[in-house]
């Protein structure tokens, strides 16, 4: 057995790899904090609720972008959750088994389309359409960004929900049937409550994805740094955290306050994403017990 038998060498490789991974990631994240430190030091936490962003007059309010990100996430979830959930139910409970592979393939295509191509679709299909329907100046709006995002998180939602439904043991369904429950009762009383943990972590993962998506949002959201007037007006152009970073990173000089403020946007983004991901895990942990 001379094949790959040199065990100390294998150990060395493993240790090097792990150390490399840990140092690489911690260094990257530490630099994010370091670069935004200048900004937090100068302004404290007040930019989080200040609503004016004019980098050239040293006004750095993060509120418009935070509200924009919030609305985009909500709109995306409002479309993607019902649609993805019912698609999962239909494909795993109603349609014959032989269709499933095709539906999975469709979802994989949808998940495979890169975000910038979604942006292109949004720019050429969605914006003129919204412009006509709502009689807007241009179609650039929070609604357009939310709709494109809902298309992007649909596969995540659907695959997670489908897996959760498939994991329910056959005995449960058979018992429910032998009790004489009809289809609706079985769905609402047996299947959905049991699949709920999986569906919930699908929702949280989708939220995280919607929060962090950049290119598609950047192309359709309009990049206007203003809190929507009134605050629930989703037909106005607006700005999200990601699109602001994407738009302005090119023009901010390295080391300036503007650069540091954009890093602070990145830090807020990363903190929210970590929070969402921990929330979804905490629940999945309970599922395993």
């Amino acid at each position, binding site marked *: 057995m001379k094949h790959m038998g*040199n065990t100390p060498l294998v150990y060395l490789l493993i*240790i090097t790899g792990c150390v490399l991974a840990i140092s690489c990631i911690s260094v990257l994240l530490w630099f994010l904090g370091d670069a935004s430190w200048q900004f937090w030091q100068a302004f404290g936490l007040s930019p989080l609720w200040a609503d004016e962003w004019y980098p050239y007059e040293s006004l750095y309010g993060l509120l418009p972008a935070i509200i924009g990100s919030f609305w985009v996430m909500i709109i995306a979830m409002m479309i993607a959750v019902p649609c*993805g959930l019912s698609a999962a139910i239909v494909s795993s409970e109603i349609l014959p088994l032989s269709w499933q592979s095709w539906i999975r393939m469709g979802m994989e295509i949808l998940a495979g389309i*890169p975000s*910038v191509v979604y942006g292109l679709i949004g720019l050429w299909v969605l914006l003129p359409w919204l412009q006509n329907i709502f009689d807007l100046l241009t179609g650039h709006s929070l609604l357009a960004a939310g709709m494109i995002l809902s298309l992007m998180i649909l596969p995540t939602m659907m695959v997670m929900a489908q897996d959760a439904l498939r994991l329910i043991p056959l005995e449960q369904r058979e018992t429910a049937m032998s009790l004489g429950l009809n289809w609706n009762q079985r769905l609402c009383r047996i299947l959905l409550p049991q699949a709920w943990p999986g569906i919930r972590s699908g929702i949280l*993962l989708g939220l995280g994805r919607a*929060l962090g*998506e950049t290119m598609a949002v950047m192309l359709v959201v309009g990049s206007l740094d203003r809190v929507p007037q009134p605050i629930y007006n989703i037909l106005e152009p607006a700005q999200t955290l990601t699109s602001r970073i994407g738009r302005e990173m090119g023009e901010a000089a390295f080391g300036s306050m503007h650069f540091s403020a954009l890093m602070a946007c990145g830090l807020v983004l990363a903190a929210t994403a970590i929070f969402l991901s921990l929330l979804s895990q905490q629940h999945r942990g309970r599922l395993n017990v």
Partner: protein
Amino acid sequence: MKMMLILLALPAFILPFSCLIYIIVQAWPALSWALILPTDVTIPPLGDAFSGVASSGLWNQIGGSLLMMFLACLLATPIALSIALFHSLWATVYQKRILLSLLQVLQGIPPIVYGLCGLILLVHYLNWGISLAAGGVILAVVILPLLSMNAIHALERIPIEHTESAKALGLSHGAVIGRVWLPAAWPGMLTGLLLAMARSLSETAPILFTATVFSGITWPDSIFSPVTSLQTHIFYLAQEGSNAQSVHIAWASAVVLLGLILCFSLSAHFLRRYEGSV
């Protein structure tokens, strides 16, 4: 109730294929072999750079995207493998839980944040400039969680009896890895690698400021020179927007990129099925 659910679910079944068809229809006028195959590049006259770029082929962009993908996979695969081996050789139950939750957190962090970190550290502090190397490293970090989770799951699916009987035969750890685990786990790992390749091709935001330029580059001279990539090419063309020719080129680039990505992700799909049938 059933009818309502089917009605709600209909978009999910129709949209993937209609998106695909729409993209191809839009790109049809600009699609030709001349677009993809290498052409002798003529340097466009100054001030006319945009139409020059729009009319030349996509060969360099395809090359740049693939180069960055290969670099990312080359960097990330050994690290992901060693994380997976650490997970299955030494880690205690507690450490395993920490490791998995850490990987999930890393996967949840938006790619543009990694792009920002890379911009500070690689482009400015290490002074690599806007370069292929910076893009490759950042993409490697982006795909690392995906790759290592897939490798971990592939190793976990090996029945414990195999490992135990191999150890009972007196094989060293190295031999267990090489002769027992690797033959059993390679389809799962390859699936992970293919998915990671597709992912690194579709990421745009993290390389926008760190690795790519719009024009003027045919082929990078070294790994420290900027490249052009298909993803960012689409973005720049989409932003210009007015010129009909450039719009068609943007859709054509989208088709080429989508074709590359679907090559990888659909072969992962079929590999997973093959693995299930074995």
